[in-house]
């Protein structure tokens, strides 16, 4: 649609334009764009013991990808982050879609109440959520064990956050618990915009709720599936707070919950035995930037163009 905003017909230099645009542009450029670019520049530098920085070309990247101390940490963090992301995609986004579909199926009442409740954990700080679940999963308090006991599965309880295998899955599910409201709300918004006539016509033809969903609604929400996927991707590869809060900067046990965000923080600030290294930190940040950029570009050039958007 063509936006018909007419140019203000002024011959003089448009000072008002500068006044309107300057504050936002200056703050944004200085505190967001410049640091992003400067971080990339720093990733090509290293510092000597006196703190003087000198150009080293791709040396930081070579170290990060090949050094026997760095490489396993990088791949570990990346691998855990991919698992973290996949669990969100599969569990969070499909349950979010299910809830949105039920809330818009016109068979239930109290939609406003359910919506408000499902979005509630999203409003809380990740720090608070991390501690709440740490308490619930704690063997000391026995809440999780008690819940399993209700269905006779008490013997399955383990201190999951402290075990190398299950810790990452447990943390992913905690994060799913918190953020499920976002996909739910985005799917809900798309689903309620589907015209009633379409659904009524299908109902008259004898289609049930299940059929209506898969044959009519689902194709119409495919663009939203893409938006949800890319938001999940960017959010997950940038996550930090939950792991830091529950497992500390070392992302224990034995780095089994280390993701890109905690790896970046440790590299930049250091921890116990390792000194902080700003230029290596900038290198890790640039790798994260590239990971996120690849995802965003794939979404923009493939998904957004391929998926047909139906005009409703």
């Amino acid at each position, binding site marked *: 649609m063509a936006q018909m905003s007419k140019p203000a017909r002024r011959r003089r230099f448009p000072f008002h334009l500068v006044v*309107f645009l300057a504050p*936002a542009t200056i703050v944004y450029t200085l505190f967001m764009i410049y640091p992003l670019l400067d971080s990339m520049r720093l990733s090509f530098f290293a510092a000597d013991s006196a703190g003087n920085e000198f150009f080293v070309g791709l040396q930081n990247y070579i170290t990060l990808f090949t050094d026997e101390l760095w490489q396993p940490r990088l791949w570990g963090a990346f691998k855990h982050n991919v698992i973290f992301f996949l669990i969100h995609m599969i569990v969070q986004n499909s349950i979010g879609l299910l809830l949105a579909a039920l809330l818009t199926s016109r068979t*239930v009442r109290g939609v406003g109440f359910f919506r408000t409740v499902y979005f509630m954990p999203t409003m809380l700080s990740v720090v*608070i959520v991390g501690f709440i679940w740490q308490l619930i999963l704690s063997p000391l308090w026995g809440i999780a064990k008690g819940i399993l006991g209700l269905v006779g599965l008490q013997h399955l309880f383990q201190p999951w956050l402290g075990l190398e295998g299950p810790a990452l899955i447990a943390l992913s599910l905690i994060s799913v618990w918190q953020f499920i409201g976002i996909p739910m709300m985005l799917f809900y918004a798309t689903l309620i915009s589907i015209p009633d006539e379409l659904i009524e016509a299908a109902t008259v033809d004898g289609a*049930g709720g299940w059929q209506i969903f898969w044959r009519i609604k689902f194709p119409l929400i495919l663009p939203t599936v893409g938006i949800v996927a890319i938001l999940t991707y960017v959010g997950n590869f940038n996550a930090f707070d939950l792991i830091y809060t529950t497992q500390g900067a070392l992302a224990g046990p034995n780095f089994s919950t280390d993701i890109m965000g905690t790896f970046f923080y440790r590299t930049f600030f250091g921890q116990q035995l390792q000194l902080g290294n700003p230029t290596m930190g900038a290198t890790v940040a640039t790798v994260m930037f590239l990971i996120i950029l690849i995802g965003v570009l794939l979404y923009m050039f493939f998904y957004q163009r391929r998926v047909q958007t139906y005009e409703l």
Partner: protein
Amino acid sequence: MNPRTSSLTRAVERVAAYAILLVATAVALFPIILILMNSFKARKAIFRAPWLPPLPETFSLIGYEKVLQRSNFDLYFANSLIVTLGSMFFILFFGAMAAWALSEYDFPGNALMGLYLAIGIMIPIRLGTVSILRLIVSMGLVNTRTALILVYTAMGLPLTIFILTQFMRQIPRELKEAARIDGASEYRIFWLILPLVRPAIATVAVFTMIPIWNDLWFPLILAPGEETKTITLGAQQFLGQFISDWNAVLSSLTLAMVPVLILYVLFSRQLIRGLTSGAVK
């Protein structure tokens, strides 16, 4: 399909739908309620009967007393309030001005400018942290609330400008032209138009407020000092320190959680309306 089976199917579908929704409600609410309830109980009751609400014989405020004695929760709370409100003011004010320029004036490079200001919607500001810290150090702003406000303003602007531009484009041209014919300056027209996008500004305000209030990363890196700690960082450190004191932990979690929950319940209708009307398009 004959009508009887189809109405039976519908009934089954409805029961199943409610069952799923209610289970999800329980899963979403029980952790929050559990913490709230137990924060008002004595230590023994927390462990013996975690599922019971505080009863007269188990009621206790010991946790809250400890938290208020041992930490500066009131100071952290004030810091969070200053940082969040300060950032919001600049985000909304600067953002509305830029959105107005982009939506109203057809200058060369308008589309490019819009694209430039939108980069930050997808690229997280955290990735520039190494250089942000250097910049803040060189400006002498480490451990100040100003540093946080500046960074959060930069963080909130892209989405704000993007959303407000969409809304400002929908303002009828007649209104602006009428003002121009009356000889109003461009600044005056901006002020006249601003109230018309109030609902959009309210939506954006909520969107940008929550991540700022809840952020751990930048307070941890730019302002970890006792005087400038925000509630999120303060709670994180307090909880880490007193993790074995269950009364204190449960009470501090409740203290950090309740203001957000009250605000959310009060404004959830507006927030959800904003989410469902603007976010997808």
